[in-house]
């Protein structure tokens, strides 16, 4: 419980990231640099300053597992009544594997469900540390083409796809999520390929299409960075529904949003 790690936010009453009512703990630091990332302040491990609503705000703090759990367990009865619990997000929680594992373990000791949102870009050893305490893995598969993947996220996808297969084979409940980004992966062909891959993973039953949104745009300004997707409009609901139909051909349960 004295294990420390670096987080930048705790968000309660989250209902789109795993079953039931959940609290998301956002860990700081990521190996990818996705152009559309709606939490750009999550990417650097270092503690940063960001301007929020005209005021400077310190992003990132070092906390112990005990401190995080005290906050998380304030909603303990909501989790128990809804089958919810703790979700680790980021950043990439696999960048702090010991801390992440300790948080998940503490959650299991408190009898609540656990989940992570992760892009699986790190060595499988990091993932393995978490698996004994993990109920649901919400894994991003952003693109099947390694080159395009690298172009938009900074890294190839080979390891992600390997890890996906390993996690699936480990028997952990795995849900595949696709951030659907115009100019990157929003053609029916892109979605079709990802959905087929997801369907090929043993035990995977679900895929979520997460439509691109611009809610993170102001944060780029707040960090003094340019927003690479400036001018790109979110897709219409009708278009998303058409992609949903494409995804359904894989035979998986499909939904828009988490």
């Amino acid at each position: 419980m004295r294990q420390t790690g670096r987080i930048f936010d705790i968000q309660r009453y989250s209902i789109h990231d795993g079953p039931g009512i959940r609290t998301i703990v956002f860990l700081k630091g990521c190996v990818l640099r996705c152009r559309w990332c709606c939490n750009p302040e999550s990417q650097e491990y270092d503690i940063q300053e960001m301007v929020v609503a005209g005021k400077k705000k310190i992003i990132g703090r070092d906390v112990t597992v005990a401190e995080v759990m005290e906050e998380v367990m304030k909603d303990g009865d909501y989790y128990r009544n809804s089958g919810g619990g703790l979700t680790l997000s980021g950043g990439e929680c696999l960048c702090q594997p010991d801390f992440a594992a300790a948080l998940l373990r503490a959650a299991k000791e408190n009898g609540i469900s656990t989940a992570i949102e992760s892009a699986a870009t790190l060595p499988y050893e990091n993932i393995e540390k978490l698996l004994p305490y993990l109920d649901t893995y919400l894994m991003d598969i952003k693109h099947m083409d390694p080159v395009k993947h690298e172009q938009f996220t900074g890294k190839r996808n080979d390891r992600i796809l390997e890890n996906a297969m390993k996690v699936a084979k480990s028997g952990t409940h795995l849900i595949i999520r696709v951030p659907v980004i115009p100019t990157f992966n929003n053609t029916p062909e892109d979605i079709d390929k990802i959905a087929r891959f997801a369907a090929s993973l043993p035990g995977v039953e679900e895929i979520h299409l997460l439509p691109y949104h611009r809610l993170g745009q102001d944060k780029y300004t707040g960090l003094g960075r340019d927003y690479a997707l400036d001018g790109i409009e979110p897709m219409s609901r009708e278009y998303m529904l058409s992609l949903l139909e494409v995804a359904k051909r894989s035979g998986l349960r499909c939904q828009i949003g988490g």
Partner: protein
Amino acid sequence: MNFDTSPIARTKRIERLLDAFYSAKPEIEAARAELLTESYKTTESMPEVERKSRAFEHILAGIPIIIRDDELIVGSTTLQMRGCQTYPEFSYEWLEAEFDTVATRLADPFNIKDDTKKRLKEANKYWKNKTTSELATAYMDPRALRAINHNLFTPGNYFYNGIGHLTVKYWEVLCTGLEGIIKRAEDGIASLCVGKEDACKRRIFYEAVIRSCKAVINYAHRYADLAEKMAGSASGERRSELLKIAEVCRNVPEKPAKSFYEACQSFWFVQQLLQIESSGHSISPGRFDQYMYPYYKKDLDAGIVTRESAQELLDCIWIKLNDLNKCRDAASAEGFAGYSLFQNLIVSGQDKNGRDVTNDLSSMCIEASMHTGLPMPSLSIRVWNGTPHEIMVKAVELTRTGIGLPAYYNDEVIIPALMNRGIPLEEAREYNIIGCVEPQVPGKTDGWHDAAFFNMLRPLELTFTNGYEDGELVTLETGDVTKMTSFEEVYEAYKKQMTTSIALMVNAINAIDYAHAQRSPLPFESCLIDGCFEKGLCVEEGGAIYNFSGPQGFGIANVADALFAVKKLVFEQKKYTMADFKQAMADNFGKGLTALDAEHMVKAVCANLKVDGKPITPEVVRTVYESVVASKKLSPDRIKFYEQMLEDIEALPKYGNDIDEVDYFARDVAYTYTKPLETFKNPRGGIFQAGLYPVSANVPLGKQAGATPDGRLSGQPIADGIGPAQGRDKLGPTAAANSTAKIDHMIASNGTLYNQKFHPSALVGAKGIDNFITYLRTYFSRKGMHVQFNVVSRETLLDAQKNPDKYKTLVVRVAGYSALFTTLSRSLQDDIISRTTQANTF
């Protein structure tokens, strides 16, 4: 599951009735005031109860009646849909003073014809020195009157209007008919022992009951005649509908209801005519799904009604509930904004033996609110540990429409809260809700809920000014705060200011109570409340079995945050002094003087001049004003100092974020109101009990409160309900609910109010609904008493402000009730928008 929650289609008739509703503009009519006055002029020698019954008889015999197109349930108080009558016997001066502005005011405008003004002026002449409000003023202690003038509390509701706020025995009228009640009264007269000390008064009461019931029967027969006459010139389906209406009105409410249709019509006449007898609002149908169910079930089994035809009748009643209207004075209209009559109708819950009694009608009542989308009735649902999930889903489907209904009430808190007031378990289990959020036992209670608004910020201000305002002592001297050396000393001074202010309020409320007993005993209402027959007394005279007075305190969040700031910054961190806080409040934290601040300062200086024997002329006042304004030009350093101070206050923990230290302090602050209050008694033999809710008065009464140490600026809205102050809850709905549940709701047996705004995205799909239900049930398992939701996006509300015509039908939850958004004043609209939206974007 022994009930059906599946949807039922809305009929064309309901759509047409709704169209007519939306195209009607509220208007004031004069007939009732004229008939009342005519009668009163001829009955001056008679006892008051008899006069009331004769006036009621005269009004019901003469008031114009109308059957609107497409109506199946009839009985309209005004010729115009959504019109209102006036009630000069309670008060009238305000309306005459507002004749020229009532049509154009922002909150709840009413049209009024020139001819109506003339007729009302003529009728009102008679009422000079005869109203309940004048008598109440006469009863009031001068110190209580002064406290009202200083806006410590606002007892305007019953000061100027009838009381209402009860649930009568509708079920008895359905079961025995008014003829059964007349029979009881006749038996009462027959068994009078003439020599007994109260025999003369009893006889008058029973006679007044008989006269009133016969007046109602006669009124129903007028409708039967009218329907027959209209049938003569109608054709086809409408002709048979009118003939049916005639047949129904010929039978009920005089005789027992033979069918579901008759039960609906009988219910409606009672509901409507209680509101013609007096101008009281919050006359609440209560457990409608329970007392109507036997009639529905019988007809359904016999094939007389279908689910669809019964639903249409319910929908018709729902529209009638919105047809009734009431014009309040401009200030009260802001406090009760949205044309609401607060007719609270509650479904589900337990019976007296503790079994769940959710039935088909529970669901159909929810369906009716979906079909009509109107603010009335104030639909509520009782929730307990055994409430079936299916009815919760149905309720949340209504919540999801964004209409702000239903309100959810927690049996697990309310039943013990009522038992703590001496009500037996079986009766407590039968509770319903009055008006906004006030629990009570139906048919047995005169709760005097809503007796006054008590602004908890005002005693806080008086703590800093040693009880003085405008140069006079308003409450009591509790010492110079700048000399206080511990937080306990400050808190003790606040508690004394509270106790004194509460006593002053009790005096004012009891004065009004005496005035109603003397000038407004209401025999029709009283014959439908248990206890009155036995005692031979009207409700207003203490006839009911259970009697309470329930004034509502509000501002807990602000006071808790404010005192917490003083505790931390002055006595723990020692960053600021008490003098800094006192000055900051006087300087409005450097954000400029409001008109309110300037007025107080000018009054204070003038009062001192007067003491010195100086004449107060307009010139003197102007000079004083100019010097006050000049003295408040602050140096840039000072302004900077205040900016820093506001930042330091902002950085402190705030109520609403699930932080035990400040939340449990808020619990204690709430006790400064709830505990002293319950030691007081009312003239009807009952006690005072606290409510914790502001209706919508947190906005207008915020304008009457200066800056407070929580960083709230002068004139800004006060926190809504028992929820966190606007925008200060930053950790989402569970944290806010957890904080709110840390207040002791059980002691606030006159009701607590928790408004929660949700973004529609949080309620998407079956999963959204399930999580929402879990959220609600968990709040209740933590002993929250009530919660209601606004589910509408900020963007929608902003757009509605810009394009009101597009949003004529947009209903939002204001505070314990729902209102059409575009009819609310701009400031209240802004307040609703500023309440934190609990959004989960992605």
